[in-house]
């Protein structure tokens, strides 16, 4: 924190970017916003560093000033006091329309222009920047591919698209001029939960490829935990309660407010931060197709199960039950049945928990579908494995 004497306050015009770390893309410096007629500030003396290439989520209840904070970054709202530094530049020194064209902006309900075809919606900023027709066409094609949009949709009007497709077009439009910074204001609040989950997964995959600096506003703490590298929890009046990586917040909430906002199920929520591929798995009962019935029974007895996985050189064929093992020469003679409770390396432990507790055998089988020639067997996940994921 800087200290301000009255003398400093007078000389405050001289821009002094309080020695931002080199990897800081956006620095909010004592940012304050008081709306005319508002008794209390909407945002109060907010300091926040947003590292380059990270997704930072601003979360908090209604009236916490998270959207106001976001809009001060592209000057849709002018701060009453304080400074926004973008790559070390005071944004007030930049022409406002240039600033905005250099920042991607995604809003709730997509905000697409209903009177323009999808293609022209995506091309909005390039058109404002007077790119050539051929360059725009090429960029639109690339973005459609990047966001998995059917090229046939490009010549439709937004009203012909589903909510999820509209939101994807909104993201494509924000990325069109390849801005280093993306602002997203409750981007998924208007779509149904199934579509929302898919769009969130897509954003994670997209961010892995494009590595933008993203500021995301949401009231949904689960969305923040799922998407963000860093979460800033704001209290009413835009007071910063805590900022940090999701697992840090869930492990050690700094205040009662933060703890309350994160919820009573913080342990369970931490499960959503660990993926099956990173968890410790049990070996589980496994036999090769060449195993005899007696060998299979021995494995089951050792593992305490009444079924056994059949794997051939790491490839999972399925499972056979104890009651099927009637004197067959080898397990290969039996028809291995497919597992119902299957998780992949990218499945979160939270999702895996659901699979485990709803499966008859109380275990989930972890397989990697990437490989050719059938799913590769990784192991099994038990309730004990999941408990370890919470506590470690």
């Amino acid at each position: 924190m800087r200290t301000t004497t009255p003398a400093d306050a007078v000389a405050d015009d001289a821009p002094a970017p309080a020695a931002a770390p080199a990897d800081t893309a956006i620095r909010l410096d004592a940012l304050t916003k008081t709306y005319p007629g508002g008794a209390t500030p909407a945002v109060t003396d907010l300091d926040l560093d947003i590292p380059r290439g990270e997704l930072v989520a601003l979360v908090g209840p209604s009236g916490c000033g998270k959207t106001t904070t976001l809009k001060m970054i592209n000057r849709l709202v002018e701060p009453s006091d304080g400074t926004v530094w973008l790559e070390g530049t005071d944004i007030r020194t930049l022409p406002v329309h240039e600033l905005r064209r250099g920042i991607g902006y995604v809003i709730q309900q997509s905000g697409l222009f209903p009177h323009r075809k999808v293609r022209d919606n995506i091309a909005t900023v390039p058109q404002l920047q007077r790119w050539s027709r051929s360059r725009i066409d090429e960029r639109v094609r690339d973005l459609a591919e990047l966001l998995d949009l059917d090229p046939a949709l490009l010549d439709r009007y937004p009203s012909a698209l589903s909510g999820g497709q509209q939101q994807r077009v909104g993201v494509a439009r924000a990325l069109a001029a390849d801005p280093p910074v993306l602002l997203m204001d409750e981007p998924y609040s208007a779509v149904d939960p199934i579509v929302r989950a898919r769009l969130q997964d897509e954003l994670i995959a997209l961010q892995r490829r494009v590595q933008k600096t993203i500021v995301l506003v949401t009231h949904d703490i689960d969305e923040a935990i799922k998407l963000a590298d860093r979460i800033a929890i704001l209290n009413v009046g835009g007071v910063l309660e805590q900022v940090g990586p999701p697992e840090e917040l869930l492990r050690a909430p700094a205040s009662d407010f933060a703890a309350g906002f994160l919820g009573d199920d913080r342990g369970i929520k931490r499960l959503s931060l660990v993926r099956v591929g990173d968890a410790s798995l049990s070996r589980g009962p496994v036999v090769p197709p060449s195993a005899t019935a007696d060998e299979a029974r021995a494995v089951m007895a050792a593992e305490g199960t009444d079924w056994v996985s059949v794997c051939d050189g790491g490839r999972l064929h399925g499972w056979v039950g104890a009651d099927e093992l009637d004197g067959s020469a080898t397990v290969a003679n039996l028809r291995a049945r497919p597992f119902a409770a299957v998780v992949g390396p990218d499945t979160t432990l939270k999702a895996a928990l659901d699979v485990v507790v709803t499966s008859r055998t109380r275990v989930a089988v972890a397989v990697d579908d990437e490989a050719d020639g059938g799913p590769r067997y990784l192991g099994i996940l038990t309730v004990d494995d999941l408990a370890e994921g919470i506590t470690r």
Partner: protein
Amino acid sequence: MTAPVLAAEPLVRWDWVRDHTDDITAQLWEHLGLTAAAVGMGFAISMVLALAAVRWRWAYEPLAGFCSVLYAIPSLALFGVLVPISFFGLGFRTALAALVSYTLLILLRNIVAGLDGVPAAAREAADGMGYERWRRILRVDLPLATPAIVAGLRIATVTTVGLVTVTALVGEGGFGSLINDGLSRNFPTPIGVGTVLSVALAIALDVRFVVIERLLTPWARARVPSTSGTQADDALVRARARAAGRWSALVGGRP
């Protein structure tokens, strides 16, 4: 008991119509010209007023109030005021000034309603992506307000076609001149011809605007991508229903 003189005449004397086709055609052009000039000038003025009202919100009520007063002035009284002024006099300028003043309220209200109806999300997105204010109004707000604006133009046009018949009193009346002629001579044929053609012109212009709106707003009926005839017909029915809805929503009763 004497029968009314009008009743003695047949309703339409076709030989009169045949002998006066040149005259009727000339009146059609005059009627059309006055209507186009009045609606065109009214539209230009209303657009400026509407943009000012949207920019400076406090100006809207006074502007709308002023237009309401113009709308409420009886046309005869307005002629009485304008004709003695040498710039206006007995003729085209007086007729045009009166007709324009009657379009302003309808057009101003509809343009402002259309601009107010632009989805807030589209406007915010445009601002956030770096549109200058004037460019946003031109490229986003006005195109999205087009249905309401065209609805206003339709009402203004139909109203003006009707009012042109009254401006015959200052010597510029299109079909109104025929009606005047018939009334002064107790001769029903020109009255009937003038009335029927005036109504027909109003309907024809109204239909023309429906076509124009459909051309200007392909996006408004893009919800169902349709190729077959029935679907296209459905879209037309829906567009008409929407237009009818706007009509009743946007026009108050005439004073």
